[in-house]
């Protein structure tokens, strides 16, 4: 059976791929925001090794 481009399967796969894509994008944003918050905390210190290299 020939499949047309708008087969229901395409929509389902598109939905799945879109879902995964949005989750990954959200995760990247979350890690970035979390990093900014963590390094802005009053008690934040760079690890000793890196601090010594500066």
């Amino acid at each position: 059976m020939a499949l047309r481009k708008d087969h229901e399967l395409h929509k389902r796969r598109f939905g799945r791929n879109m879902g995964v894509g949005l989750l990954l994008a959200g995760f990247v944003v979350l890690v970035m925001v979390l990093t900014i918050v963590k390094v802005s905390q009053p008690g934040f210190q760079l690890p000793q090794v890196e601090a010594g290299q500066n």
Partner: protein
Amino acid sequence: MSDASINASNIREDEAGFGDYFALLKPRVMSLVVFTAFVGLLASPVSVHPVIGFCAVLFIAIGGGASGALNMWWDADIDRVMKRTKGRPIPAGKVEEGEALSLGLALSGLSVIMLALATNVFAGAFLAFTIFFYVVIYTMWLKRATPQNIVIGGAAGAFPPVIGWIAATGTMSVEPWLMFALTFMWTPPHFWALALFMRSDYDDAGVPMLTVTHGRRATRVHILIYTVLLALLAVGTSFSGIGGPIYLAVAVVMNALFLAGAWKISRRNEDMSEEDNFKAERSFFKLSLLYLFLHFGAILAEALLKPYGLGGW
């Protein structure tokens, strides 16, 4: 027009959508995890940055979801037999067992590492232990081996407020364990009421539920005993660091209703239950959902009002 990207011989009409993979994470159980972990986090005496708090609850929820996926992977055989679980993604033929295993393992690793990075290593380790407890100790080992399966499984579901507290404070104290005990003691009457009106489900699956091994009369008595112990614990918690007048009022009212429901169930026999299609058991099950929500809601209210000098004693 034919489409070269789809090999017609490999087409599965029931191919999983995004929602089917999400269903592997047991969203309804996850909502309980989110709520209780959130309460554990906010009830702690430490103030947490909102972003860190959000991340903590999110990764605890993902860890809970990962446990759900691993549970569905392992229990696929009995899920196919039970009416209540037949529609889950694996028995419905939408998701392969191996996919559930991969998703569960990947999300377990991600949630533990991210929780440790976002909050502290203790919280991450405790989440790892919770996943291990639910998947290995409960699902793989004890669920099919002992009629006390629900009691032990309840412990896994009771850990989230403890993890929330540890995520905020990095330490342990008695208050999160009171929240743990509340969920732990609530789980058996909640599930045994379900087992009473789901009747043959667990029997068909060969799961040694109390209703199957000790009979339905014994299950009714067990529900009453656990409810009495739960009531003592729930009201007693009013006088701890997480309690207060709001919590006390909620605990007194809800435990009176819960005890009345358990008493009613214990006085009924199978004929009476069959006659009204397990009305009392179904009402008790519904009440149990409200019971837990209101208790944790009251703990949350006490915590939120404390900065204004209103919460607590």
